[in-house]
């Protein structure tokens, strides 16, 4: 039953993909194309997560981290463009691995948008935060991620990367219609927001790294959570 449903899902997904893709390529629908590609990247990650049989504890932990990341925006409502979600996603991924990082990031976006309003930006946000988690998790054992400076640089880069990904859904349609300089203009316009995001990432990672990792490690050890992640 589970297998057949999985295959059915993949078949339906693929057919929609092919149809939409051909449509998009044939008639320059870059926005649609980007959506389809987005789904195509995220689907295998979700499927992989589905295939792992997780313990109740692990599920609760992931849900709780996603919820905390979503809620963490509240105390900072008074400070514009300071959002600790990214820092929390990165730290979760560092401790619990890339798969957990993806789920926490993607779910945090989905859940917080249930309160802030869903829209075509939701999959983009899910993608951006999800990838932030995946990359942090994949790099967590490299020597430079273990260095403080490396971690901070990582946060800085993702601050910009996040903004660029989020610009895409607006820009991708403009790219064909407008000159590249218009696209550049959009990116230049968002530069200060991205910079603020990047700097706040650096700040949060700088003050949180030690304490939060200790806290999360404590839970991981105490309860043997997501060990193979």
């Amino acid at each position, binding site marked *: 039953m589970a297998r057949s449903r999985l295959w059915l899902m993949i078949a339906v997904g693929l057919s929609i993909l092919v149809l939409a893709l051909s*449509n998009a390529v044939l008639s320059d629908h870059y926005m649609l194309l980007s*959506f389809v590609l987005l789904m195509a990247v995220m689907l295998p990650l979700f499927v992989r997560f589905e295939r792992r049989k997780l313990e109740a504890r692990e*599920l609760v*932990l992931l849900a709780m981290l996603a919820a*905390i990341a979503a809620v963490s925006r509240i105390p900072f409502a*008074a400070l514009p463009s300071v959002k600790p979600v990214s820092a*929390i996603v990165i730290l979760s991924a560092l401790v619990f691995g890339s798969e957990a990082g993806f789920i926490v990031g993607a779910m945090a976006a989905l859940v917080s948008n249930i309160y802030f309003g869903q*829209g075509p930006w939701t999959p983009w946000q899910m993608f951006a935060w999800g990838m932030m988690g995946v990359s942090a998790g994949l790099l967590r054992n490299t020597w430079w991620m273990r260095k403080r400076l490396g971690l901070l640089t990582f946060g800085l880069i993702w601050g910009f990367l996040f903004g660029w990904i989020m610009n895409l859904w607006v820009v991708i349609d403009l790219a064909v*219609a407008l000159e590249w300089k218009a696209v550049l203009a959009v990116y230049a316009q968002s530069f200060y927001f991205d910079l603020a995001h990047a700097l706040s990432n650096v700040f949060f990672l700088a*003050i949180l790294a030690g304490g939060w990792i200790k806290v999360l490690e404590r839970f991981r050890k105490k309860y043997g959570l997501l060990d193979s992640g």
Partner: protein
Amino acid sequence: MTSGFRALHPVTLFLFYGGLLLCGMLLFHPVFLLTGIVLLVSLIVIQKHGGTIVKMLPLYLLIGIAIVVINPLISHRGRYILFYFMDQPITLESVLYGVTMLLSLTLILLTSLSYNYNVTTDKFMYLFARLVPQSALVVMMALRFVPLLRRRLSQITLVQRTRGISVHEGSLTKRMRDGMTLVKVLLVWSLEEALQSADSMKARGYGTTKRTAYVVHRMDRRDRWLTGCLSILILVIMVGSALGWGRAVIYPRMQSMVFSMEDWILYVCFGIYMLIPVIVEGKEWLSWKYSK
């Protein structure tokens, strides 16, 4: 509360909005888009949440004007030059393209407004749970935790203020640091308590066998019928659009906006598609009116 279009089966509703989003991107033609916008707005008004449009308006106008004004200023593609602005040729094509783009964006944004109203979280989760049950479970738990965490956070904020920890006073760094202290209290506390949630799941047999799903939504005849109609319409629109119907050719050179036969077919299909929710709501309204 839940009557009319809202009361349709989640699959039907989701299909409608998915298709609509697709149409918003595929049918790049001002007439199509305008028709879609008018019918969607009337649905929103009939469903009495027009307030959400008003709330979105300022932001929307900002983006809209930017697109309409900036596009012709930067893009000079096209044959028909309307006038020169600061030595830059302003072409009819680029103006028209900007407007069409704006319409496309408008339809997408209106779709998400109407979607947020009609496809409530539980309906979305119901769909999600069939496709990816484990991820859906995580989301549902996260949704259950968010209000709990918000309440906890407000308690923490209150109590920590008595100790001088607050995001409302001090330098920016101090405020950011204090904000994070609040979140950390929440983190440690909630992760500790979350293990009890896990126990409660295990105590009720989580992971002992293959899960089934309790379903509150039932697909009735009307749902099935409408789902069928919507699917056929979407298919026709997708195929038609792939064949180049219903698409205004603007660049490199504007061509006639007059509908061809194929365009008319597509237009009728799209019209019916957009009318479905309005008709469902209208029928409901009539039945209430005459039952009194």
